[in-house]
């Protein structure tokens, strides 16, 4: 354990990734990612497909098991208990406890197909946080208003458009009052005309001060909303900095090539 977290006092740091590595068989997808996300910061992860962005995002709530390195969220080591210099992987229950505070939004929405919208949003707060039904339902309705879906609590996922489903998925994640939100290409599976409504909700969240890490291909959104942009390629962070700076005047050749292709 040569590396120490840079901000051990927890002063305003939400995510701390140290030399995160991940291999699928012989293929190394993440080759040592180091990054820090401050509380309230909105960070966009850009990069060509296969660059490891989504894999890294999934390591943050241990949906993906790392091959090396460590990740701390709000000062807590994710996925492992450290005892006597060894890392012991957490049990399913311990992992569940950690994930309660980290919201995640998926590319394919993954709403619970057998539940209506209200149950999708309120089940976890009741089941896991022990909220009363009245409390959870009231909060769910509040969140539906936030994502501009008032009155749709009885709808089932199959009755909603992709954009609506994704907004419900955001509300579902927010219902757990997470301190960090992870977005895994939230608009990539949407028809072009539905992308705007989802980005609008994410903009609201950012304005409310939510800490967000967003894997996306939406450059305009990144430039406008993100405090910082991180460009990844082939499993390494190639370039990072203020959003406008990285997108408008990239320094590295690989970033330039990628951005040229995106425009």
């Amino acid at each position: 354990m040569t590396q120490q977290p840079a901000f051990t006092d927890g002063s305003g740091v939400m995510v701390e990734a140290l030399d995160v590595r991940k291999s699928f068989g012989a293929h190394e997808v993440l080759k040592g990612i180091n990054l820090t996300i401050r509380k309230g910061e909105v960070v966009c992860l850009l990069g060509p497909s296969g660059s490891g962005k989504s894999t890294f995002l999934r390591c943050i709530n241990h949906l993906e098991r790392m091959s090396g390195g460590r990740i701390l969220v709000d000062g807590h080591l994710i996925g492992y208990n450290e005892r006597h210099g060894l890392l012991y992987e957490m049990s399913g229950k311990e992992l569940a406890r950690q994930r309660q505070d980290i919201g995640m939004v998926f590319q394919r929405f993954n709403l619970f197909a057998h539940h209506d919208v209200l149950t999708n949003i309120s089940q976890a707060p009741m089941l896991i946080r022990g909220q009363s039904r009245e409390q959870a339902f009231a909060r769910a309705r509040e969140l539906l208003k936030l994502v501009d879906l008032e009155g749709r609590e009885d709808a089932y996922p199959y009755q909603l458009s992709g954009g609506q489903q994704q907004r419900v998925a955001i509300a579902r994640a927010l219902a757990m009052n997470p301190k960090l939100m992870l977005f895994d290409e939230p608009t990539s599976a949407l028809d072009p005309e539905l992308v705007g409504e989802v980005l609008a909700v994410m903009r609201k969240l950012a304005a409310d001060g939510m800490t967000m890490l967003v894997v996306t291909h939406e450059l305009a959104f990144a430039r406008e909303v993100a405090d910082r942009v991180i460009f990844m390629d082939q499993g390494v962070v190639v370039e990072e900095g203020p959003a406008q700076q990285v997108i408008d005047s990239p320094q590295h050749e690989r970033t330039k090539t990628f951005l040229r292709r995106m425009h």
Partner: protein
Amino acid sequence: MSEQRIIPARNWGQWVIAILLIAIVGFLLAMVIMSRHITWSAIPQYLFDETILEGIKLTILFTVLSMLISIVAGGVLAMMRLSPNAIVSGFASLYIWFFRGTPLLVQIIFWFNIQLFIPSIDIGSIHFDTNSIITAFVAALLALSLNEAAYMAEIMRGGLMAVDSGQQEAAKALGYAPTQAMLRIIFPQALRVIIPPIGNQTISMLKTTSLVSVVAAQDLLTRAQNIYAKNFLIIELLIVASIWYLVMTTVASSLQYVIERRLGRSTSDAPMAWRAALRLLRAEGSNG
């Protein structure tokens, strides 16, 4: 516009086949009905015979019990098969391979004769005679249940695997513990895939129970056999038994149809059924 008369195409080949079928079936029926060797009056006489009715009760009991046991055991086996531990999943595979690979009839006879190599069971100072525990009833129930569990395990595994992996990931990411994710998210969705084949298995089980007559387990067929052993009205009693098997499978089929309609086979209907079921559960919960 004048109305044009249209004469549909006539398919003469189909007509020829239909007439042939009527002739053949009619001939066979006439042969049976006019047979002087069938005592027709015996059929209504034995249809509601007390022994026969007792046999029906037992056949239904075998079906219900073995289905219940095999659903629970099959569920456990299915989860074992999906376990990451090689020995746990290997055990389940071995079980399924063995019980699906040997004839049920052999398994029934085996359980009935188990005292031949395990004459007694001793746990500490407690002593059982195997014969007193493994009666014909227990042997038959064991054989039916353990055999059916193997098929049920495969049905349930198919159901669990049919649920999109994204559902599990979403549950995990929200902080559902593994058991909560299984009970609240995965299993309810698997049920929609699992229920139709369980219905088929149940209907099939109603008839399969007749195999236990080899150990005289007192099911419907055993009773019919007992009666015709005395009065030699073999065909008549087999007809009586067949009538009852047909009644039971027909009722079971209509039940299956109703349940499937309620549950909804398409995605669009399923949630309605769940909502209705949940309301029922909630209502019962608040009453109790």
